[in-house]
């Protein structure tokens, strides 16, 4: 294992620009790491050949001094982003063999900035899950294990493969998508940093949809600065996505170290939920103290409708999903399971092509939109969503950013919480409210649980104010000085 894979994205970039090592050396080190960690099942498709091809262009561009933001840097792509002629699965059986004849806008930008594609990472099927256990291609295991236990823990989900790949030093950074917490929660579970930007900051064009009004691409990195750099390369206006915002992309990476002096940081009192483990409460208080020590003012705020966020989310997201996933019907691409006739072909293809969690959500979504129930469920949920969004608007009159734990617990063992959907859904209790409001949120590793697993803190910002998330995140990062490595990686470090 090469120490090149232990660099941050920012360090690797500097190293390439300073010609301390070559694009090839950097890439081959990562390809080796990828091969060494296949036990994590973090990738559905490896694309070493594509990366090597991209590396040639990158090397010559670096040579000519025409380097893009990510020139020559090996990264991983959540397998929810469509990539031209590369198998794209959404971790679902129903997309068997699907090779898109098109590129997602985000990955197109990344290749344009010179990034190298190591592969497509595993995820919960159609991004539905919080443990990365619903993938047709098998669960992802986290590179972490609890102290004194060698049972694998989950990496979180749905972007579990991306989080595991970055945590295990396979990729310098990775894309994710976040609908209700699918970047922030796995970042917290895997001890890395993950940002979900404001809804509309990154294009959804070419990203396989789960719930359109919530889905947002974002970034994983091993530092706040890396996330800022990576997100800069991903973000920006796209005329192909009507919900993408025509706003300039700020130079986040240069300003992450701006500090928190004079900032007001809100702690929502409703996030002190019943039964929250004391270590979560402690890390949260710790985070507040760190920020206070760096000159921020800590204020208590109220987000009164917090407790309704999860049920609201579990109406809206399945409703949109039930419609978004109607196109997987075996007619034009992907799996077709032939039946006696058309009707049976539909039923079998979708019955066998979707896994249990996806089927469950499609069923719920279909039900809440069906005749006679729309007002009671979907319309009601959109009204409550309005109230939740208004809560945040009001809260931001009293603070510049909101600090919360990212998840209500550390990572759990593979196999836990599988029999109770609601218990699984509670993983996202702290991330879902800001998703419903479309706000940016970052998760930064802040410490370890009693069992030696990473714990993350979440910083939520105002609309389009990723900058404040980065600054506060960086302040926590500095104070936390989180340097613990997952199992098996300490030795190599």
């Amino acid at each position, binding site marked *: 294992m090469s120490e090149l894979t232990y660099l941050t994205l920012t360090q690797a970039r500097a190293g390439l620009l300073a010609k301390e090592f070559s694009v090839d050396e950097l890439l081959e080190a990562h390809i080796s790491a990828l091969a060494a960690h296949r036990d994590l099942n973090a990738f559905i498709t490896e694309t070493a050949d594509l990366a090597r091809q991209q590396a040639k262009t990158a090397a010559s561009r670096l040579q000519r001094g025409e380097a893009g933001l990510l020139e020559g840097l090996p990264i991983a792509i959540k397998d929810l982003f469509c990539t031209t002629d590369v198998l794209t699965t959404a971790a679902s059986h129903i997309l068997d063999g699907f090779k898109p004849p098109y590129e997602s806008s985000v990955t197109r930008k990344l290749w344009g900035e010179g990034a190298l594609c190591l592969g497509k990472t595993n995820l919960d099927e159609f991004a539905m899950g919080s443990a990365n256990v619903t993938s047709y291609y098998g669960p992802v295991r986290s590179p972490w294990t609890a102290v004194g236990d060698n049972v694998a823990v989950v990496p979180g989900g749905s972007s579990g493969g991306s989080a595991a790949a970055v945590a295990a030093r396979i990729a310098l950074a990775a894309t994710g998508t976040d609908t209700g917490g699918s970047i922030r929660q796995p970042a917290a579970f895997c001890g890395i940093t993950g940002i979900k930007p404001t809804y509309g900051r990154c294009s959804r064009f070419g990203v396989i949809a789960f719930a359109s009004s919530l889905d947002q691409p974002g970034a994983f990195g091993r530092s706040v600065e890396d996330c800022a750099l990576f997100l800069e390369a991903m973000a920006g206006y796209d005329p192909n996505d009507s919900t993408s915002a025509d706003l300039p992309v700020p130079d986040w990476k240069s300003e992450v170290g701006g500090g928190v002096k004079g900032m007001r940081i809100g702690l929502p009192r409703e996030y002190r939920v019943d039964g929250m483990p004391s270590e979560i409460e402690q890390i949260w208080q710790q985070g507040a103290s760190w920020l206070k020590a760096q000159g921020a003012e800590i204020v208590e705020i109220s987000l009164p409708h917090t407790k309704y966020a999860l049920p609201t989310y579990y109406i809206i997201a399945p409703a949109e999903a039930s419609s978004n996933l109607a196109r997987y019907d075996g007619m034009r691409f992907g799996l077709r399971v032939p039946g006696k006739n058309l009707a049976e072909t539909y*039923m079998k293809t979708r019955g066998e092509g*979707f896994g249990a969690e996806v089927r469950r959500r499609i*069923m719920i979504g279909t039900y809440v939109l069906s005749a006679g129930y729309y007002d009671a469920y979907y319309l009601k949920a959109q009204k409550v969503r309005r109230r939740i969004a208004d809560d945040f608007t009001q809260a931001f009159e009293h603070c510049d950013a909101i600090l919360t734990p990212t998840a209500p617990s550390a990572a759990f063992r593979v196999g836990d919480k599988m029999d109770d959907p609601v218990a699984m859904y509670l993983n996202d209790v702290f991330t879902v409210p800001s998703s419903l409001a479309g706000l940016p949120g970052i998760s930064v590793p802040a410490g370890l649980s009693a069992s030696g697993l990473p714990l993350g803190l979440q910083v939520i910002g105002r609309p389009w104010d990723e900058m404040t998330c980065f600054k506060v995140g960086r302040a926590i990062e500095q104070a936390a000085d989180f340097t613990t490595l997952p199992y098996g990686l300490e030795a190599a470090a």
Partner: protein
Amino acid sequence: MSLDRSTVARIANLARIDVPDDQQEPLARELSNLLLWVEQLREVDTDGVEPLRMIMPLPPRWREDSVTDGGHADVVTANAPAALDGFFVVPKVVE
């Protein structure tokens, strides 16, 4: 709201998802539990609240009327389980 087997069967048909008979009962229970859980929303007073339409208010985004795509039936049908002469081939539709 608790779902019975027949409702599950109706929803499964609307969603075109085959649910084998022996799975209808357990699925009905599972979905009923979920619905019971989301029904706590009834507690929220939403009188006079406008449902959320756009999370981030954006100006209208329309495209110019010009032909910028098409002319590649081969690409469009490249992933089709079955295709013929530029058409997608699907099981017989009975009118």
